[in-house]
């Protein structure tokens, strides 16, 4: 007598085992079918995504000449900028590749800070394009910001917080998770040994600038944009900044800066851009 899966002649334990085995096979089957279906669906979706986006990507890369993007990481073309009704500069072209440093020169009010702020994306240029690794910085947005570091006239440190807290928070904002040891080491290298835990309001102007500059040590940004980094610094600190810039360039970094003080970096050619 054989009626389907259940055989009354079988031992009760056997039939249970049998059923158990069947259900396991069914479950395995079910999982397999689902797995295969899902994989197929994902692959189909991926295929269609690629098929649809590939032409667009090719066109995009051709437009921006990605190959040149490797040579020149930062490219500025035909840039024009104005403050109110006053035209600061126009038709500005330059490019910067890995390991290069450029000083922006010009009299007071010639638009050095405006140029640097435009490069940061704070100000919209009147005309022209700023291209980073083949893409406009407006479109890259956060991808660009992950690779650049800006240090302006303002130190961006809080009086109520200690030097250590300030450094850790500003590193955190730029996406670097800094532990206490690294932060202390950076501050000590900046010559702030013994002042790590003091609230920055008791520090001198030069020491506060050093706290702000300590960000250079802990950042892994490729492009440094420094607006008057040497203000309020003593001779020793200026030498240290020169050393830091040298190290950054040696690691294929890039620096754009303004200063009214002499700054020499050994081993590299200093390019300069004069605004009039």
């Amino acid at each position, binding site marked *: 007598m054989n009626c389907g899966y259940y055989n009354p002649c079988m031992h009760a334990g056997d039939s249970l085992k049998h059923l158990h085995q069947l259900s396991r096979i069914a479950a395995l089957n079910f999982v397999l079918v689902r797995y295969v279906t899902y994989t197929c669906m994902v692959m189909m979706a991926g295929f269609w995504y690629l098929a649809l986006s590939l032409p667009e990507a090719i066109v995009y890369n051709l437009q921006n000449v990605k190959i040149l993007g490797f040579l020149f990481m930062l490219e500025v073309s035909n840039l024009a900028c104005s403050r109110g009704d006053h035209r600061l500069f126009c038709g500005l072209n330059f490019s910067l590749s890995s390991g290069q440093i450029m000083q922006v020169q010009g009299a007071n009010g010639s638009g050095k800070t405006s140029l640097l702020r435009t490069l940061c994306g704070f100000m919209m240029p009147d005309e022209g394009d700023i291209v980073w690794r083949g893409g406009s910085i407006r479109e890259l947005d956060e991808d660009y910001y992950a690779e650049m570091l800006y240090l302006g006239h303002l130190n961006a440190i809080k009086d109520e917080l200690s030097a250590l807290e300030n450094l850790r928070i500003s590193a*955190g904002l730029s996406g670097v998770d800094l532990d206490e040891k690294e932060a202390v080491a950076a501050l000590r290298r900046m010559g702030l040994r013994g002042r790590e835990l003091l609230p920055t309001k008791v520090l001198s102007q030069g020491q506060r600038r050093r706290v702000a500059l300590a960000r250079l040590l802990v950042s892994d940004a490729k492009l440094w944009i420094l607006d008057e980094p040497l203000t309020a610094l003593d001779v020793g600190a200026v030498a240290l900044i020169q050393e830091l810039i040298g190290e950054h360039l040696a690691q294929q970094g890039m620096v754009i800066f303004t200063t009214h003080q002499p700054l020499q970096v050994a081993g590299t050619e200093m390019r300069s851009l004069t605004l009039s």
Partner: protein
Amino acid sequence: MLDLLLLVIQRDLVLAMRRRADVLTTLVFFVMVVSLFPLGVGPELSMLRKMAPGVLWVAALLASMLSLGRLFSADYLDGTLEQMMLAPQSLSMLVLGKMTAHWMVSGLPLVLMAPILGLQFDMPGQELGILIIGLLLGTPILSMIGAIGAALTLGLRGGGVLLSLLVLPLCIPVLIFGTGAVEAMSSGLSVVSHLSLLGALLVLALVFTPWVTAQALRISME
């Protein structure tokens, strides 16, 4: 992304703890304004009970205006705001963190203080409960709408007055539904509709205001 949100909240709370005077100003202002009414109107209980929700809500609205000016201005003046814009994460997230910290420092104390002040007006327990729930839902909206105004008036001379003129009209719906809930409770109607509308406003504000504030900040920084 969540790390960054927590970092900003933590930073703002630490800063608030080190500048306690700013936090206390808001709370003391709230207590003072609310306490002035029984003195001015007279100790007639039925009238006090009737006007209690309105007085508390208006005072909370005005108190929240006090601290809004400082929401972005300190960061703007010392350059931290510039660095926040250059953060490789979305500015809206940072703004949301700042709004949350602002609410915890200037909104939450008002909510906690409200029941004690409500007792001055002889409010019954149930109405006090509804008032607190309303304030809990409403004060974050005030912080978030206020942040848009604070971002728009950033760096302007006399921005404080302009900020109030800009933000107060936008807060009227919150006021209406907040006081409406307590009044519905006292006249035996259902409070669900008022509180649901407040909740809907909160969700709406939570979704849109960080983005709008971030755009306003970008405009102000140019």
